[in-house]
């Protein structure tokens, strides 16, 4: 802004200024510590209300003008002789005796289309250095989830681009699917690949993606943003970041801010995909706040309302009825387990709230099976009704086949003594596992998934050496792309694998086998 424009703006503001003598309900800081402030007064404040600290008092005009942005607090305890609030910022700025003003507003975050491609903090303030976001609508971070009448059942698939998930644990738009596993088992990778895969969707039906990073290292979030940017996925993604260095209050609020932004788009009839990475860290932040607020601790020192914290958040993910615009929020919460223990307090809570879970195992990950999905413990309770007919047709028996393979796997060490039927079943299972492997950042379109799973189901890779199955799969897909793109286009368009497509896919498999004899001689 030039000096001239700025002076003009100031003059305009002075001319239009109307002094107000409104009375503000206030309180005084009694004590402050660990991000929690105890206040007296504020008899008219309500739960969840935003308070603002009067930092300008006793400062001269020049110092006040140069001051940082306002400091806010969120009321979380209403007590007999005052209130307790969590400071949403640097608590070192708070002094004993400081005046705190009630704002009369519940915490809200700004939302707008301009947020797409931006990184914001838990209060919706941009932190990517690209300037302020304009034309925003304030969305309350706490909102009652849509009721039964306003919802409709999940019927549209959300393609993750990951074969193992789209085939065996399908996710529908409006579903809540938990991603659970130990540290470093690829939980975030699944979430990010799902965001990247949305690029293949037509722009008008492509879900808006919201990635909420809770208690993550700044370096990890920066890497994810870079990955999304390079994949061209940032343009339809909003990143809400409450880093590990942020106050616990912001880590507790970040998922609610993310879902408030998601609701802005859902209310406009858009589909939204929201990822909470991860809710274990949010639970820990909430436990810290609750203990500091002197709320009674329960199991594992979590407060009594820890279940409600997650249920009220995840209930906001839904598919709205056509009368309400037909928008949806699909939630992929992430939970980190310790030593694969899914029966711990927070994991069981979130498992019971969500519509299914994708369980990742360290053992599988270390064996090189990636994504390291434990098919036996993973389930999608509503997603199958949203699965395309083409995928249903090819994926029907995979889960059972893999389960049988796992049963027989124990006998593999006696390979020489096995009968032919068992040996064949093990060989098929091993090749199916190889086919379901997928590199990160490499989501596959649905028609290619259908083609490759159809081929695997027809034991196409039976004569391929185990070590070359991935290579054979890649070359087969390249071949289909080059020679049978019309067939792939038909599968994509109709979302069905009719007899004609099956026939041409069979022919393509035969032609590929003839052309790549070297691959099929290595059993």
């Amino acid at each position, binding site marked *: 802004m030039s000096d001239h424009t700025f002076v003009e703006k100031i003059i305009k503001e002075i001319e239009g200024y109307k002094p107000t003598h409104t009375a503000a309900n*206030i309180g005084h800081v*009694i004590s402050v510590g660990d991000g929690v402030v105890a206040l*007296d007064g504020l008899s008219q404040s309500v739960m969840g209300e935003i308070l603002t600290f009067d930092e300008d008092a006793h400062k001269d005009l020049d110092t006040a003008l140069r001051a940082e942005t306002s400091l806010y607090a969120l009321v979380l305890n209403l007590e007999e002789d005052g209130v307790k609030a969590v400071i949403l910022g640097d608590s070192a700025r708070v002094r004993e005796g400081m*005046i705190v003003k009630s704002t009369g507003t519940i915490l809200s975050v700004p939302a707008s289309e301009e947020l797409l491609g931006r990184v914001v903090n838990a209060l919706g303030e941009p932190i990517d250095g690209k300037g302020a976001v304009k034309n925003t609508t304030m969305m309350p971070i706490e909102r009652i989830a849509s009721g039964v009448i306003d919802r409709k059942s999940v019927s549209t698939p959300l393609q993750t681009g990951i074969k193992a998930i789209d085939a065996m644990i399908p996710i529908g738009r409006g579903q809540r699917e938990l991603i659970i596993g130990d540290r470093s088992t690829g939980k975030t990778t699944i979430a990010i690949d799902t965001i990247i895969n949305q690029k293949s969707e037509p722009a008008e039906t492509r879900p808006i993606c919201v990635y909420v990073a809770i208690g993550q290292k700044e370096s990890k979030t920066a890497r994810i943003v870079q990955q999304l940017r390079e994949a061209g996925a940032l343009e339809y993604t909003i990143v809400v970041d409450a880093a590990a260095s942020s106050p616990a209050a912001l880590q507790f609020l970040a998922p609610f801010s993310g879902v408030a932004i998601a609701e802005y788009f859902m209310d406009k009839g858009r589909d939204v995909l929201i990822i909470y990475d991860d809710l274990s860290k949010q639970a820990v932040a909430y436990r810290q706040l609750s203990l500091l607020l002197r709320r009674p601790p329960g199991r594992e020192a979590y407060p009594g309302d820890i279940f409600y914290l997650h249920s009220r958040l995840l209930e906001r993910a839904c598919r709205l009825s056509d009368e309400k615009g037909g928008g949806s929020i699909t939630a992929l919460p992430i939970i980190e387990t310790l030593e694969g223990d899914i029966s711990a307090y927070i994991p069981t809570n979130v498992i019971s709230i969500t519509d299914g879970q994708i369980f990742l195992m360290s053992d599988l990950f270390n064996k090189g099976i990636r994504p390291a999905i434990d098919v036996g413990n993973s389930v999608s309770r509503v997603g199958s009704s949203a699965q395309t007919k083409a995928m249903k047709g090819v994926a029907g028996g995979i889960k059972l086949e893999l389960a049988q393979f796992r049963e027989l796997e124990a006998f593999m060490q006696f390979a020489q003594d096995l009968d032919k039927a068992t040996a064949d079943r093990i060989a098929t299972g091993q090749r199916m596992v190889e086919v379901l492997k997928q590199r990160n950042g490499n989501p596959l379109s649905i028609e290619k998934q259908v083609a490759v799973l159809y081929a695997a189901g027809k034991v196409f890779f039976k004569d391929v050496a185990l070590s070359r199955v991935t290579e054979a799969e890649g070359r087969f897909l390249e071949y289909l792309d080059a020679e049978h793109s019309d067939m792939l286009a038909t599968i994509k368009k109709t979302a069905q694998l009719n007899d004609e497509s099956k026939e041409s896919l069979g022919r393509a498999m035969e032609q590929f086998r003839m052309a790549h004899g070297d691959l099929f001689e290595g059993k």
Partner: protein
Amino acid sequence: MENAYAQVIWRLVAGGNTAHAAITKVEEHLKQTGRLGLLPRVMHSLARIAQSQASRSSSIVVAKKEDAAHAAHEAGNTHAIQDQLQTRVDPSLIGGWRLETPELLIDTSYKKALLEIYRKATS
């Protein structure tokens, strides 16, 4: 816990008991329940409540001492003030006045107006 006992003492005194009688009653109760060890912390908490109540006086803040009478008159005209007002001088206000009661703040100072204008223009 100690805060709750301190509140009880405060309310007993407010209800007409002498401070000595109120404290003795609470001390008796603590003895009976085996919590006498809490007493020093209760007294500390009571001191905080008393301090907090003492600071709950209303004041009018002006930029110059000579503005005080006019400010008090203006404040009294616009808002019903029941307490005795203390006058404080804060030159940083530049002009106007600021009424601070335990639960209420009315700020008509020039500093607030200028800050509002500046923040609107720069946002």
